């Protein structure tokens, strides 16, 4: 397994270099750029413009810029943002990446499980009118024009019902009274989620070791998960900064719902297909013949096996989800990577735009790696 992860890491590193090269050269082969912004600003004299050009090092040759850039990427030195001059790009990305990770980890996990569960029951109840209806709804959710969906959600939940915050990622009136940096909370939230995840993993492995009864395993797993979650919630609840975390999570609900709606259908449809194929497999007939209850056949045998291609597809859809993220982030005023990317593009901020794009890519790459590892765990046929 470790060898496999190592191999994947090496592959990812190579991909990363190519990716960076593609991004860099594409960006730099485009016309326009900082010169255009400066030229149209009448408050600057030509001399002032000239000095800025020099300050940005835009007069160097492109290959030289790339070699430097590549070297710098691995030292997390992504250059200096034009629009946040002289803030380094990495500082901006480091600030915004956790927000995106938090939003997307939650949204993708939720949409995966929703899609998985609904795809499962769709396939199991094949031929019913409900299948037709949910497929159509799923496809509409999949193809709906995301901005419109978000507008409607904001209007309905935010303005009409008024139960969710309209946008932003925190409530300034609340945060006014603290010197806390939102960044810290984001990082702690991510840490909490990782810890709970780790606890779940450990309890899962422990459960496998301790008992052989599925029921007992489940109980051990659920109880320890519940304890871990309760501990986490308790810690946040008693901690003085708990309310700030809840504030952020509260603001996250609508964006997460949006991303979930647009991305669950993909998983659902693939799961349905995969499940339909799996149901035809002989081992399902065997499982039925063994006299296993319907639910066990569905969940333990069919769904568990049908899940594998769904996970593969899930990786492929990662780019799609991130794309949906740009829209979601910019419409919900969620200052993460997607919004940074859009705004920096509109501001013609080369270093920041390319940096954001590269880190979006790296994010996808690592998600890819994680899913690969999970896959290797789930499919015993893969033993590298």
């Amino acid at each position, binding site marked *: 397994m470790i060898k496999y992860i190592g191999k994947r890491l090496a592959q990812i590193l190579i991909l990363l270099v190519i990716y960076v090269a593609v991004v860099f050269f594409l960006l730099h082969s485009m016309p326009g750029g900082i010169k255009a912004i400066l030229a149209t600003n009448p408050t600057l004299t030509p001399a002032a413009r000239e000095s800025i050009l020099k300050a940005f090092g835009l007069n160097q040759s492109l290959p030289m810029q790339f070699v430097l850039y590549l070297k710098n990427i691995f030292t997390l030195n992504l250059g200096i943002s034009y629009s946040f001059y002289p803030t380094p790009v990495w500082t901006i990305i480091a600030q915004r990446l956790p927000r995106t990770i938090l939003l997307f980890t939650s949204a993708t996990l939720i949409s995966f499980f929703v899609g998985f569960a609904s795809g499962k029951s769709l396939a199991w109840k*094949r*031929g019913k009118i409900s299948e037709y209806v949910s497929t159509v709804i799923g496809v509409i959710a999949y193809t709906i024009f995301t901005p419109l969906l978000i507008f409607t959600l904001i209007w309905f939940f935010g303005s009409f019902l008024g139960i969710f915050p309209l946008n932003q990622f925190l409530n300034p009136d609340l945060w006014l009274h603290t010197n806390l940096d939102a960044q810290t909370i984001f990082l702690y939230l991510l840490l909490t989620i990782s810890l709970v995840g780790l606890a779940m993993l450990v309890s899962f492995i422990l459960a496998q070791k301790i*008992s*052989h*009864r599925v029921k007992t395993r489940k109980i051990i797993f659920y109880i320890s998960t519940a304890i871990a979650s309760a501990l986490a919630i308790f810690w946040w609840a008693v901690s003085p900064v708990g309310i700030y975390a809840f504030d952020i999570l509260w603001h996250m609900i609508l964006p997460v719902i949006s991303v979930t709606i647009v991305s669950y259908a993909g998983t659902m449809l693939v799961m349905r297909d995969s499940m339909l194929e799996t149901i035809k*497999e*002989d*081992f399902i*007939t*065997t*499982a*039925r*013949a*063994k*006299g*296993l*209850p*319907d639910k*066990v056949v569905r969940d333990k*045998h069919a769904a*568990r*096996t049908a899940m*594998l291609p769904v996970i593969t597809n899930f990786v492929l859809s990662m780019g799609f989800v991130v794309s949906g993220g740009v829209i979601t982030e910019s419409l919900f005023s969620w200052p993460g990577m997607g919004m940074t990317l859009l705004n920096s593009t509109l501001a013609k901020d080369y270093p920041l735009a390319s940096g954001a794009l590269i880190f979006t890519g790296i994010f996808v790459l690592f998600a890819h790696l994680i899913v690969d590892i999970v896959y290797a765990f*789930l*499919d*015993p*046929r893969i033993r590298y």
Partner: protein
Amino acid sequence: MKPILEVENLKMYYSTKLGYVKAVDGISFVLNEGESLGLVGESGCGKTTTSMAIMRLLAENAEILSGHIYFKGKDLLKLNNEEMNKVRWAGISMIFQAAMNSLNPVYKVGDQIIEAIITHEPNVTFEEARERVVNLYKLVGLDPKRIDNYPHEYSGGMKQRAIIAMSLSCNPDMIIADEPTTALDVIVQDMILKEMSRIQKKLNMSMIYISHDIAVIAEVAEKIGIMYAGKLVELSDSVTIFKRPAHPYTIGLMSSFPSVKGEKKELVTIPGEPPNLLNAPDSCRFAPRCPFATKECLEKEPPYEEIEPNHFIACFHPQNLRKQVNEYAKG
């Protein structure tokens, strides 16, 4: 001898857009305790469908039109799904055609067997179940160390053995073996068949073998049923079937089979191909290929009758067959 399974006039059709596919069309047979029955026929003749009907594992579009399947006196077709689940594996277990795919690739083989045991006998602890699996592995000639391996780590023959072990795991009264050795090489096939015969004798189980290969059936079954196009055309003990076949199809089948033993005989071919079962007519289904068919055969359905004790046949002209057969075989 007590009958363990009685199939009475079982009719099972698949409904399609174009009409009914008469997959199993009125078959009846009785299987006694400790007896082994072989069902022989070509692909699509309904032998697998029959076994699936017994297990009540039919496709969505399958309809059982009539008939009864009595297992130990209970009509399986009248049970609800939960009751049926209790019969499955504990009463009747099954060895599937494609052993390669009959095991779930994501679970350990041993666990899949244990799962069956624990489902049917909730009082058995995991350790006890595992102990039983070890014994079963020994019984079928597998190394018990293999219990914790995944299916893909087994070879074809080992998987087949594991499936046999699994089929025995709940001490069933009856096992249906559907083409248990088709995908295997001859040597392995030989070993498995011997193993199954031995176990069947040892545990005194009832067994239904299903195969297209009459030679395989000849090795293991005491009673043989010949199926053709959804019908059981001939049923008797194996010696009778081989020595005194009465149905023209059985006769054709016998003489078209090459053998490594005895003298090299000229092979006899049955002309034509099996019919399409979609909206099949109610006449003798073999009539179009039968060299002895008369007008009657093409119009009416021959009755399924006992022409001599324990020898059932569905043909209008079984009496004068022998002579004609001899003539036919000569030239």
